[in-house]
């Protein structure tokens, strides 16, 4: 290899499109008269094609992310616990936080209720929730059969409303995708997101782990829906896969038909 262009690395830069127009012209002029550089360029093309033929490995060997996610969850939990060990939370410090959550929930629910009422042609009649969902969060240690019943009723109602979004998303055909087709679901998802989070916290607080798990799955789907780029059909497919992978519809059916 005696050619300066080849040994300097400029040929690699030409191949990787790192040269400006003038430099490219110079290299192209050189290539027409230098068989050594042409052969070197061919080698680079062979390398690219050979590597492109290799399988694209973008998931664990099993193809299943669940073990990966579980391991990551454990590490993140340890990270969080580490933070708490340095700055421990005082038990009393939860009260103001819960108070703010309750206020936020109340405002969010009223907003959602008004929005739902205004959009009633699209939504089956469902009474707008008022203060009830906040109760399990605020009065976490004062649960009674009556309050439990209220919590159950509100949760089921919330699920019914959320199911509109989930079923709407699953029913859409990505191959006939139009961004406007799921604007309604995206808007509803955005409106339901905060409430879902509050319901999850309330369920966790009451030790209803299965319900909290379903709420978490729902929260992820709603979050993904509300944040995703609505111009991209692959986003819809991704969310549909997420719903299927988590068996979300079935889980929500179980909650709404058999109770909590």
């Amino acid at each position, binding site marked *: 290899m005696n050619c300066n262009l080849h040994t300097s690395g400029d040929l690699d830069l030409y191949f*990787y499109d790192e040269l400006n127009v003038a430099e490219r012209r110079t290299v192209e002029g050189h290539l027409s008269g230098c068989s050594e550089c042409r052969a070197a360029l061919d080698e680079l093309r062979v390398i690219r094609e050979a590597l492109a033929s290799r399988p694209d490995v973008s998931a664990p060997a099993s193809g299943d992310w669940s073990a990966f996610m579980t391991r990551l969850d454990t590490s993140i939990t340890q990270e969080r616990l580490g933070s708490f060990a340095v700055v421990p939370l005082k038990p009393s410090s939860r009260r103001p936080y819960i108070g703010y959550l309750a206020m936020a929930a109340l405002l969010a629910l009223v907003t959602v209720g008004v929005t739902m009422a205004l959009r009633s042609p699209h939504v089956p009649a469902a009474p707008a929730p008022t203060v009830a969902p906040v109760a399990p969060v605020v009065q976490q240690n004062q649960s009674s059969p009556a309050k439990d019943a209220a919590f159950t009723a509100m949760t089921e109602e919330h699920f019914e409303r959320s199911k509109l979004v989930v079923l709407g998303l699953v029913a859409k055909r990505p191959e006939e995708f139009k961004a406007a087709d799921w604007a309604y679901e995206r808007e509803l998802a955005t409106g339901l997101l905060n409430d879902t989070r509050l319901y999850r916290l309330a369920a966790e607080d009451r030790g209803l782990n299965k319900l909290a798990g379903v709420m978490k799955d729902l929260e*992820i789907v709603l979050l993904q829906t509300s944040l995703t780029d609505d111009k991209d059909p692959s986003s819809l497919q991704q969310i549909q896969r997420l719903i299927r992978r988590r068996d979300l519809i079935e889980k929500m059916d179980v909650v709404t038909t058999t109770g909590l």
Partner: protein
Amino acid sequence: MSADAELVSRAAGGDSSAFQVLVERHRSMVYRVAYQFAGNHHDAEDIAQDVFIKVFRSLDRFRQDAQLTSWLYRIIMNACIDHRRRTRFASSAALGDEAEQRMLNAPEETPGPEERAYGSELGQVLETEIGRLPKGQRVVFVMRHHQGMKLCEIASALGLAEGTVKRQLHAAVHRLREALRQARVTAGEGAR
């Protein structure tokens, strides 16, 4: 604010679901780069785990106007280098800049008989050779060739001079060319 920036912001505020969505959106890309660097699932998974833990730790340092993917690349590449360092220098003391540079350019250990017994596919031969590149060269090659990043972006992500990146890429390509020629000679001998 982009969807990613929104997720980072929520996750930084303690929203675990937002962090989970963030991981789900980017885990394939992170794993792909980690695998291209490591060449095996075991190390790729360790690196990918490490990346997301580092992301979690630095959520509050993400600039909202920055591209998440650029930020992630920087974390991935540092995780790749850290992983190598941990596995090879587990008990050694902290390294200075000079030692770090030597380490980045040090050749990998001689491959064992199993590694040498590569398959007939050219891609596999080259992939094996990529695994043997000194890690500085490997990082630059993976970022340029597999991820399609520009040299200036690589230099910025790794905190290196562009000239250094260019030299590392050239050295990597040179070694792959040699491997290609060797494979062709071997294939030619085998055919006779």
